[in-house]
């Protein structure tokens, strides 16, 4: 059982409570966009709600979950005490203060700029300071992860860092790289604008800096799901991980190819040349390699488990898997959604095809399917998997958990399939209201109502999830839970190449790729008179 269980639980609880509230906002947003009469149907409220939903899901839920999970992995995978426990609590405190500042700014209607900021709109300074504090908290977490791995390596020369920890540190390293872009945007562009030190802002540069962060941050959210695929699912299925090396390789490839690719969010932007857009597109395409490596490795691991359980024939092993276990079920459902979400993503990242769906509901559907589907589903499974070792109370049955996972997966499909369809019809995103009396779009109405039904299913599932985690009075008396064990590889590594036991080489390669992909595109803003935009202040009223 982890010694710092209070620390880990504090992170998880904050993440999940904010998550449930954000789900409720999401349902209301779908309601407002639908032809049905919704309460508080004012555009201003809509943008306020979208901001709260985005910030809660993208910054609060993810960051706190990942930090808590990182502390759990550092203790249980390394089987050592966490270094800098005080620092960890300090990081938590800083991030909580940041969350409070941000939430209060949004609630006061002073920060309806959406979670992607969109300069030249600016919010109150407290909104940005709050978010910076959340990031500072996460930087402390990154440092603690690096220290924990370094001390393990120092005390165990020649012993491979366990895969779960190696992957967690890969995520921490990636996060440090990722946050450079948005930190530069906030510190050097947005804060001077908010404070009135500048009257105009270079939106091209700020969009470029945000794109640096915008794609890698998605992989920051995604990697815990992959950690669960590699180090939890095979064991939960009753087997072993097919290849430890494949796992390490996948995580370093994510580190390499999640960063120099953000410009694929700017394909329709005028400030960059076609050549750099092409370079970043081709690097984006390489993200499919670790994804496919993972699909192969995890499928192979599950096949091993299925055959050990008596599965025969070409596909008989699938039926033999223990689908009643939440981790196995969630892995299956997450893989299913990964195919759809990944397929949509290939269209988004293709320079030409992107033009069809840019700024339509298709994009919203894509990231809800990948993040809300695959990633969140695995967050649920991770919570179910490690909760007994944190609370010392085993769950009485997994029936409710299975129902909750199914409800989430089905709800997400019901919500996102109409969105994808409407995106292809041209339904624009980031719009508060539609005039369904217009014959050109009146046919969209019923599809939006279907999405709303999916949203309601998701909200019910989210509330059920939180309810399942609350310790019950009738639960069995606290008992010392067995130490949590991660999945072993078929051939556990005795010695791995230094390249796959650390990040020195990969940091150098990331730096090379970032200079090649972002060097000139950022430099060009300083070479001549870049056009400036008037700042539109959304706070102070």
């Amino acid at each position, binding site marked *: 059982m982890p010694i710092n269980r209070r620390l880990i639980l504090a992170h998880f609880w904050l993440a999940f409570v904010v998550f449930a509230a954000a789900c409720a906002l999401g349902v209301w947003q779908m309601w407002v966009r639908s032809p049905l009469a919704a309460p*508080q*149907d*004012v*555009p*201003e409220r809509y943008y306020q709600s979208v901001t709260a939903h985005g910030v809660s899901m993208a910054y609060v839920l993810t960051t706190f979950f990942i930090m808590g999970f990182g502390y759990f992995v550092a203790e249980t995978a390394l089987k050592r005490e966490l270094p800098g426990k005080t620092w960890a609590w300090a990081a938590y405190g800083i991030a909580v203060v940041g969350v409070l500042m941000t939430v209060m700014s949004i609630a006061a*209607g*002073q920060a309806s700029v959406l979670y992607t900021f969109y300069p030249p*709109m600016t919010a109150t300074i407290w909104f940005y300071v709050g978010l910076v504090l959340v990031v500072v908290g996460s930087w402390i977490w990154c440092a603690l992860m690096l220290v924990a791995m370094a001390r393990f390596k120092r005390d165990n*020369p*020649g012993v491979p860092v366990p895969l779960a920890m190696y992957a967690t540190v890969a995520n921490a390293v990636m996060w440090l790289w990722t946050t450079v872009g948005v930190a530069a945007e906030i510190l050097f562009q947005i804060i001077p604008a908010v404070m*009135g030190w500048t*009257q*105009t802002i270079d939106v091209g540069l700020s969009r470029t800096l945000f794109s640096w962060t915008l794609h890698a941050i998605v992989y920051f959210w995604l990697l815990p799901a992959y950690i669960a695929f590699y180090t939890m699912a095979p064991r939960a299925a009753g087997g072993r991980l097919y290849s430890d090396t494949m796992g390490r390789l996948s995580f370093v490839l994510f580190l*390499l190819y999640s960063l120099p690719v953000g410009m694929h969010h700017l394909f329709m932007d005028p400030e*960059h*040349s*076609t*050549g*750099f*857009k*092409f*370079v970043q597109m*081709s*690097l984006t395409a*390489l993200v499919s390699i670790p994804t496919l490596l993972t699909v192969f490795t995890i499928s192979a691991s599950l096949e091993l488990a299925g055959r050990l359980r008596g599965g025969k024939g070409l596909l008989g092993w699938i039926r033999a898997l223990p689908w009643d276990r939440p981790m196995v079920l969630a892995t299956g459902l997450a893989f299913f959604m990964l195919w759809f979400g990944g397929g949509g993503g290939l269209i988004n990242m293709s320079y030409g095809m992107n033009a069809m769906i840019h700024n339509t509901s298709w994009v919203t559907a894509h990231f809800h399917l990948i993040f809300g589907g695959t990633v969140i589903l695995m967050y649920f499974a991770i919570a179910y998997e490690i909760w007994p070792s944190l609370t010392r109370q085993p769950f009485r049955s997994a029936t409710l958990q299975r129902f909750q996972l199914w409800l989430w997966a089905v709800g997400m499909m019901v919500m996102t399939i109409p969105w994808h369809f409407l995106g292809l019809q041209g339904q624009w995103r980031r719009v508060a*209201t*539609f*005039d369904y*009396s*217009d014959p050109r779009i009146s046919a969209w109405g019923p599809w939006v109502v279907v999405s709303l039904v999916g949203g309601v299913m998701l909200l019910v599932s989210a509330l059920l999830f939180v309810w399942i985690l609350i310790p019950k009075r009738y639960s069995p008396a606290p008992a010392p839970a067995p130490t949590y064990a991660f999945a072993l590889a078929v051939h556990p590594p005795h010695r791995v*190449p*230094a*390249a*796959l*036991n650390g990040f020195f*080489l*990969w940091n150098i*390669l990331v730096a*090379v*790729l970032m200079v*090649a992909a972002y060097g*000139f*595109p950022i430099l*060009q803003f300083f070479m001549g008179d870049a056009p*400036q935009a*008037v700042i*539109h*202040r*959304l*706070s*102070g*009223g």
Partner: protein
Amino acid sequence: MPDPVTREDRRWSLWAGVIVAGVLTFSLLVGFVVLPLAQAPNANLDAWTAICRAVGLQPGTPAQPQPPVSATAAPVSQVRWTPATLQILDAADLRPGAALASAVCADCHGAEGFSTSADVPQLAGQSAPVIYKQLTDYRSGARAHPQMTDVAKALTEVQLAQIAAYYAGYRKHDALGRSQELPSDPIARLAHRGDPSRGLAPCESCHARASGGPPEAPILTGQRADYLVSQMKAFKTGQRRNDVYRRMRDVAGALTDDEIARLGQFYQGVY
């Protein structure tokens, strides 16, 4: 003790570097050389220009230029929100502004911006860019008024900015604001939510403090109803034309006279 660097480790570094460099070289070659060269003939570009455009060293798209239009568009308002204009507003000194206001403006608009007559607009708490733009439009002839045209023409650009900064400094209490609950009343609904079926955006998406709308959009709360009604009617008939992109002419044109009258009352705060 650090791990000894083995031959295997060196091989990993070498091959990882080679593969990443290879991938990068491939994308650079295709993105900056192959595709530009392949597409250059279609766009009537020579090879070197095509490569420079792909890198971003030359601007523009390779599209054929459109035939030029002979008529030159004359903008109604001469005000442009350039960094230079914003700098003038930002640097405006309030003290000469106060002196000018009391000498030139106070008779009608009040020393603190509270006007004495129903058809004279309140200036207290109005945003500085709004006052500046209207004065500049009077000066350029984009907007006309028997008294205001002469007043504005007698002042310099910097003086206009000083007066604007002075009146903007009086923050009046907003009787109505952005955080109002949505009543069922159709006029309040128009202000807060607009009317998509007529293509009308909510008034508040531009006309509230910190709405993020265009700088020239005035704050309407507490403004005099008579003045608001006369201006909306002037926009509707086309008598007043100094609105950028003819936004207000389009909006007012879609409103009924009854709605105009009630919106005026609504924003004055007596509705």
